């Protein structure tokens, strides 16, 4: 009896320690990145965004095979990427949302945002009886649904946008991300632009105080919630809607056209950004002008130092970036449902890399 009880207590202690351990994971990651950056020369380390991780993995693998330079990337999230970049524990960071002015100030302005690819966030839904009709939404309607002001599918504002669609009378079950994510940043950035009320009440961030809805963990969590709950509406990255064969909505853009999310319409949004030669690339392209632009699109960025302590490493990073914006690497993106950078942006990045 004593023995059993001791083992019970021991197990309890282990459980307690592991429960309390979870928030310690990130500093541990920091330590690992630090040591690998310090010891392995000829290897670059990066950390950050999870959203572009599939294409980054593919790029780093292809790059290692052609040049022999290995890049060790940890997809720990944009927030973690910015943190580690700021602390200098990695050679480069990666983020889905640009660093804020305060964050740029924290690194004394020693950062260049290099756009890598483009992604789209789509509204996906599960409305019984709709058939194959793609629903149409405009910005204010989406914002009011996510604010909890429109609660039924047959609301007259949704019906007005979708004449002829058989909309049921049921509740709209809103699904959003529960984990902090670049996807949420892009989506809330869009909502903040199209709805003043959203902008003041909720705002934009990787995680916000959602007025309504259920939180799903990860894109796959939201996808499952939409798939399984009749009447639900959520937002996911394009590839998740495509690969799960979920319908996705056409969204009205800034010039008044309803645009279906696709690689072409996302690239069109980036073309509409009209970057000047002195841009720092920290631009939001949600609700971009341009007749064919899909409005919930965004760049994703690598964060690299403007002036590096270690010139050899900096040169390696520049070389990689040059390869990455080249046609061969950009062509790999579309296979994974990321939109390649439009030609003017590629030229701008090329010029910027040359001047570093």
């Amino acid at each position, binding site marked *: *009896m004593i023995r059993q009880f001791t083992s019970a207590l021991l197990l309890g202690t282990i459980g307690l320690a592991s429960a309390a351990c979870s928030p310690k994971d990130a500093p541990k990651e920091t330590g690992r990145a630090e040591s690998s950056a310090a010891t392995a020369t000829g290897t670059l380390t990066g950390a950050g965004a999870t959203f572009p991780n599939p294409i980054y993995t593919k790029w780093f693998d292809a790059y290692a095979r052609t040049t022999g330079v290995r890049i060790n990337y940890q997809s720990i999230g944009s927030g*973690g990427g910015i943190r580690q970049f700021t602390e200098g524990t990695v050679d480069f960071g990666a983020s889905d949302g640009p660093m804020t002015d305060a964050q740029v100030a924290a690194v004394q302005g020693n950062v260049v945002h290099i756009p890598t690819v483009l992604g789209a966030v789509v509204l996906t839904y599960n409305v019984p009886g709709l058939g194959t009709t793609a629903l149409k939404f405009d910005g204010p309607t989406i914002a009011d649904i996510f604010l909890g002001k429109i609660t039924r599918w047959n609301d007259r504002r949704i019906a007005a946008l979708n004449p002829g669609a058989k909309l049921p009378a049921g509740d709209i079950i809103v699904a959003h991300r529960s984990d902090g994510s670049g996807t949420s940043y892009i989506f809330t950035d869009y909502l903040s632009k199209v709805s003043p009320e959203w902008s003041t009440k909720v705002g934009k961030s990787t995680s916000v105080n959602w007025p309504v*809805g259920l939180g799903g963990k990860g894109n796959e969590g939201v996808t499952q919630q939409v798939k399984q709950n009749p009447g639900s509406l959520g937002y996911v990255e394009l590839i998740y809607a495509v690969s799960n064969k979920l319908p996705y909505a056409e969204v009205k853009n800034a010039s008044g056209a309803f645009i279906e999310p696709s690689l072409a319409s996302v690239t069109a949004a980036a073309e509409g950004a009209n970057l000047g030669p002195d841009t720092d690339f920290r631009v939001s392209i949600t609700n971009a002008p341009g007749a064919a632009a899909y409005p919930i699109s965004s760049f994703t960025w690598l964060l690299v130092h403007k002036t590096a302590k270690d010139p050899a490493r900096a040169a390696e990073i520049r070389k990689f970036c040059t390869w990455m914006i080249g046609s061969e690497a950009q062509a790999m993106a579309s296979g994974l449902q990321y939109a390649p950078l439009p030609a003017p942006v590629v030229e701008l990045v090329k010029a910027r890399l040359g001047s570093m």
Partner: protein
Amino acid sequence: MTATRAGLFRRSHGDRVFRGILTVAAVIIPVLLALLIWQLWGQAEPAVSRFGLGFVTSSTWDPVAEQFGALPLIFGTVVSSLIALVIAVPLSLGVAIYLTEFAPAIVRQPVAFVIGLLAAIPSVVYGLWGIFVLIPFLRSSVFPLLRSTLGFLPLFQGTIYGPSMLAAGIILAIMVMPYIMSVAREVLLAVPNSQREAALALGATRWEAVTSAVLPYARSGIIGAVILGLGRALGETMAVTMLIGNRHEIASSLFAPGYTMAAAIANEFAEAVGNIHLSSLAYVALVLFAVTVVVNAGARLLIWRVARGSGAGSSAL
């Protein structure tokens, strides 16, 4: 005699090395715990000084406005764990009693083994199973039934979404059952046969022997088993976050989504950018830590009191 032992001890070099290693191993545990608390406190300090104790009574969680309060998280953690215990304790005790007192010898080992296997399943697998199997089943069959039969209680009212406090409690119950069951079974097995024989000799039925002789004898050990399950339920993260709906809200209905402390930390830590956001998550971890310590300390107290009040056998504890 003492002199001989002292002499032996001095000569034996290996003994001293062994003793040294064991001492180090024993010291490491408290040191680790202290480091953990120190680190957590350091991380949480900005949020502690900004929000104070109001953190545990406020319900706002707004990363954009940098306003944080953990009450819905504490509520969700406690309620989901309680649901788990309400379901798991009778079931696992029932199984344990059946296996030790009633089952034919041939089924004892296999059943205990299979239940033990449940403990080895990773929690993310439970989470996936919950999303794909449990939630559709609950939404289509169990929840509507509960609402139509027990709907007069506020606990079973409102819209049925699927992901909910109740779904999380049920998955937790399945996850903690093997722990409670196997410890309770060991405890019951350790009850001396003379106890049963004495009860039976006095003319008790099998059932009376169990309730009057076996269970009281094993009481404190069984409480220990339940506390072990509770500790696991409080800290469980992955399966819960996949099923609970992740909403910072206190709802009276068990069909409504909720949130737990461990789930919030796991969800938000990687992408938390603001310092105060990060620090608040560390504060949540500190609160979770405190809750687990309080629960464990309470359990110890309970066991001591129970052990003191019961028969000679329990004093062995």
